[in-house]
């Protein structure tokens, strides 16, 4: 399937594995529950590993395991659920996670700018038909007052 990654539309081959699905080789993501239950098997898995987190999951508990993951998928059950904006920012700034952070779920054009400023760099849009137009959203604003992941120096230190 196609996703937006680093402001481009790209083909994506990650498989998001359900908790009851058989483990397959290749690049897979798993839920936090599956990671915690099958930790040892997953570490030996043939392929890259990604973790799916929602705002209900305790972010701080997973930090010691972060080195195992090449992708963190933040799940937005509704676009109005803003918890994972904080998760993305913390993963980038406090826990130095440098690999891909992806938004999944109710991910829409009009949230892309804020999500990207918080450090999310790939997006599975809820409506993939409008992906090309949605690329515009990253340029909605040319500045931010705040310290963001893309511009760590707040505007007040640059004026």
């Amino acid at each position, binding site marked *: 399937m196609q996703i937006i990654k680093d402001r481009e539309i790209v083909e994506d081959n990650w498989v998001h594995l359900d908790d009851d699905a058989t483990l397959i080789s290749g690049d897979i993501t798993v839920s936090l529950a599956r990671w915690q239950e099958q930790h040892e098997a997953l570490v030996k898995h043939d392929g890259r590993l990604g973790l799916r987190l929602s705002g209900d999951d305790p972010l701080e508990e997973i930090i010691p395991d972060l080195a195992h993951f090449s992708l963190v998928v933040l799940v937005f059950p509704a676009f*109005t659920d803003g918890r994972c904006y904080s998760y993305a920012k913390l993963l980038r700034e406090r826990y130095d996670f440098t690999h891909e952070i992806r938004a999944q779920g109710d991910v829409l054009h*009009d949230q892309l700018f804020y999500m990207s400023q918080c450090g999310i760099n790939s997006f599975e849009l809820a409506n993939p038909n409008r992906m090309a137009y949605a690329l515009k959203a990253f340029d909605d604003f040319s*500045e931010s007052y705040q310290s963001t992941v893309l511009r760590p120096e707040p*505007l007040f230190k640059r*004026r």
Partner: protein
Amino acid sequence: MYQYDKYDQTMIDQRVAQFRDQTRRFLAGELTEEQFRPLRLMNGLYIQIHAPMLRVAIPYGLMSSNQVRKIADVSRRYDKGFVHFTTRQNFQLNWPKLEDVPDILADLASVQMHAIQSSGNCIRNTTSDQFAGINANEIEDPRPWAELIRQWSTFHPEFAYLPRKFKIAVIGTKEDRAATQLHDIGLHLVKNHDGEIGFEVLVGGGLGRTPIVGQVIRPFLEKKDLLSYLEAILRVYNRLGRRDNKYKARIKITVREHGINHIRELVEAEWVQIRSQLELADGEIERVKSHFTTPDYDKTAAEDETFEAMLAEDASFARWVKQNTVEHKQAGYKGAYISLKAHGEAPGDVSSEQLEVIAELADEFSLGEVRSTHNQNLVFADVKQADLYALWLRLEAEKLATPNMNTLTDIICCPGLDYCGLANATSIPLSKQITERFGDLDYLFDLGDIKIKFSGCMNGCAHQSVGHIGILGVDKKGEEWYQFTLGGSSDENATLGERLGKAIPKEEVVDTVGHLLDTYVDLRHEDESFLATVRRLGIDPFKERVYADN
């Protein structure tokens, strides 16, 4: 006042373009109503019973005369020629067309105004004291800090989808004219034992369905740490606040459920991690402060003798001065209210013609500035005493000089069932009836300081739970009934009112107010205010009189 630089202007211009595209996509069917809703709310746009309503931000209540002229122009061009000022120092257009809103926002942006985050589950317009900068006993001017908060909170990418709305108020005096204890965060500029000025930080206040008075989370915060501390509170709230029930989603409930001590621990732990990154440099503080310097006041203003002479000569003028002006730190100057509470009119409403006169008077008499207040009035903050008589005559001619500030007829009232999709009951028509029935000026002055707050539903936009007399409209099987509370207050001694008894039918509301006033007049001690009388006696004597017939 603060003037935009290229950064500020570019961002609000880009916001207009963004919203224009969002509106286009909504009208073209590319965005569902559900998807568009938070986007339009974060631009102040509600869909109401009769028409959309657009709420425009007035940061901490400060407007230039040019902005006031633009408001008049916008209200005439896109609406019915009047606007409504709110309790959070903003104003609302009640009849704009959805497809016109991008143009309205572009017009406003041309004078450095916007509707950004004036609704929605995000950080709202920061409010303050309408007398900021002119109080003799002010610890420090809160306006530069309110402006710094405005910038920090505008388009904050992490906090655009909070559990619920989030309101911040900041004051620089002990007296509280901004209801700070009833905000999600209240900030008080205070002086510590070492003589340093910083902030006392309160959290978890709020009105609405579950009114709660805020609690101190930090007794003293260094000023340079303001933004990092706010960011820490917001991050804790964004993660912890309830998202399963919108009636339990405000931070006041988060604080109540987890306890202030636990919240403090979480906030302080978060804060130490981000403190240095967001520390305000002296240069930036000075840059913002340079927009709020003391004006070049006329040092000879107090030498004028005409003011005293006119006070002696014209009793109506003297009455207005006594009721509608306040002391000023500069000798020979006063702050003057523009009453938007003319008897028989909707509280907080003002016409485009009146706005144009107000803009002209601001230029002529008050350094070109106008301020909006928490009580839904306006203020000229810097009027020379020698000019007050001329100013009063002009205000009087425009029905803007009703000498009723802080009296019974200075009612705070929400739009109610006549305009609002949430309301259960009408409020404005009853509020008009109250001002008509009890509007006799001698009677008003005899009653003294009484605050009536009147909301048309339990969302409590008029803050009835902190009214000396609070009136709340409720729906009972399709009929409008009214629940009274007594003894509330939103000042520095914030208190929630006590419920008087069972709800009262619509046709008895005005009489009930009369019973409450009669009880007060009968039982008060000499010079005792209504609130003091209620606090001394409790609600029983009032209750007995009101429900005597049942």
